[in-house]
């Protein structure tokens, strides 16, 4: 398979078939199908859009519309570990700007970027992650980490396996 092509692994194809059974209409499986593809491929490339569209009988343009509407689908390769820093009201009240600035400096890339070694990508987001009791907080590979200080951020980064 060339890099421009994409298909599910045999295991993921099985998972996809299970997902289909949950809905009376094929198209309803689009979001979970894209999640599954991103889990396998790291991001949603045009080839992924085309493949998922064929599987679900949804026009490619409609798949693209969905991919670009939602923020959790990546459209380019990201770091092996992805960090989201919450910049919502409660986190701002508790000093998330300093956390954001520290992280940016420490990783040496601006929000939205990927480190040179491909280990990390990160973004500061204006939407609330739903963990205001932990403010200031961030999400790393799905897990929430809160009551952050610059030292805690450093610790967290050094604990992450490459």
């Amino acid at each position, binding site marked *: 398979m060339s890099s421009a092509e994409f298909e599910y692994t045999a295991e993921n194809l099985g998972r996809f078939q299970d997902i289909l059974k949950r809905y009376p*209409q094929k*198209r*309803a499986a689009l979001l979970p199908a894209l999640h599954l593809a991103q889990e396998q491929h790291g991001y949603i490339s045009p080839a992924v859009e085309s493949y998922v569209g064929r599987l679900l009988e949804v026009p490619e343009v*409609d798949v693209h519309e969905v991919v670009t*509407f*939602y923020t959790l689908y990546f459209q380019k390769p990201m770091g092996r570990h992805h960090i989201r820093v919450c910049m919502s009201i409660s986190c701002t009240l508790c000093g998330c700007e300093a956390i954001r600035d520290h992280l940016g400096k420490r990783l040496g890339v601006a929000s939205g970027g990927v480190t040179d070694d491909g280990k990390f990508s990160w973004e500061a987001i204006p939407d609330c992650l*739903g963990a205001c*009791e932990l*403010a200031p907080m961030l999400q790393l590979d799905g897990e929430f980490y809160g009551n952050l200080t610059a030292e805690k951020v450093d610790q967290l980064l050094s604990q992450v396996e490459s």
Partner: protein
Amino acid sequence: MPILKLISEDFGNENARGLKWYRDHGGYEGAIKAMGMDPAKVTEEVTISNLRGLGGAGFPAGKKWSFVPKDSKLPKYLTVNADEAEPGTFKDRYILEWDPHRLIEGIIICSWAVGIHTAYIYIRGEYVRPYGILQAAIDEAYAAGILGDRVLGNDFSLNLYVHRGAGAYICGEETGLLQSLEGKKGWPRLKPPFPALVGLFNAPTVINNVETLSHLRNIILKGGKWFADIGSERNGGTRLFALSGRVKRPGVYELPMGTPMRELIYEHGGGMIGDRALKAIIPGGASAPVLTADEVDIPMDFDNLAKVGSMLGSAGIIAMDEDVCMVKTLHRIADFFAHESCGQCTPCREGTGWVYRVVSRILAGKGSADDLKNLMSIANFMTGTSICALSDGASMAYRGILKKFPNEIEYHVKNKQCDVEEARLARV
């Protein structure tokens, strides 16, 4: 007043998540009792309980169910709104993480009452850990015959699936949620028709919040009247209040509806950090208009907060002290709504962007004399002019700060700096 833990008793208890623990502590007894009752009687108890829609709208839950036609040629659906994304809100996450079986039990009770055989939980994509815990609980329930072809041994089938969102606040709006569940971008639908008649896959659909459904077990076991008696007038039972901001002990506190904000902030939340003076409170997520410190004794229920021009909404309470700059708070709110407007309606798409750009300019010391007037004019134009409530919520939030803290905005415009910060520096 002591904390009354009707649905939060197991928060923080690692042992309580599993099915065995749940059943050993009376779990699924409410569903068993409900399934021995006439479905109409179940709905009646919920109506008597004064249980309100706890996602934020506060619509009476029993009434919502009663709008679904009894006889439908199409299958009926339940969709559970777990797209918790209103800034300042994190209560549903606690239920999903600590007590998932209580939610599943509520789903069974609702499905029995309305005659539903397929339910979907729409959970926000960022809730990765709650998703895993919830899915594990559902798997357990299927294996134990609690879900599936014969729910708890009855001649009644119920399939329950979790559908993960992908990062869009608008999908918490009920028709945006339906669009997203159907594999589309989350553009809200015009109402009517309401989802109770034309909802998911064009079929009659109940959409209930996680917390709303989690109260059903107790309501069925102890009766609607028992629940109604706990809360305030027309606001039954307790509510999970998610407290955050500059307080000593942020967290989720379950308190009777109608509890004053002062009690939440000072007794349960331990008061403000550094014992600084309270300045402002957002009482129901980012969309709820801000209140000032002298309004801290208002009882927290849907009706009392509506009376003072704000709302209880999602019960995300954000407390701000004297060192907090309200222009900066407005800037965070404006950034959020500009980012999350789905772009379908022009007043919202353009209005949220304008407000964010104007407030950014003011904060950067480049405000102009007309800004306050213009912001108010944009906010007014965004009210009642779009398909869903996002625009209304945003404009309410803007107007709240513009009306209650106009001096701070004017100071920023005039002096190109922050008066709150100056006052803080003068003190230290």
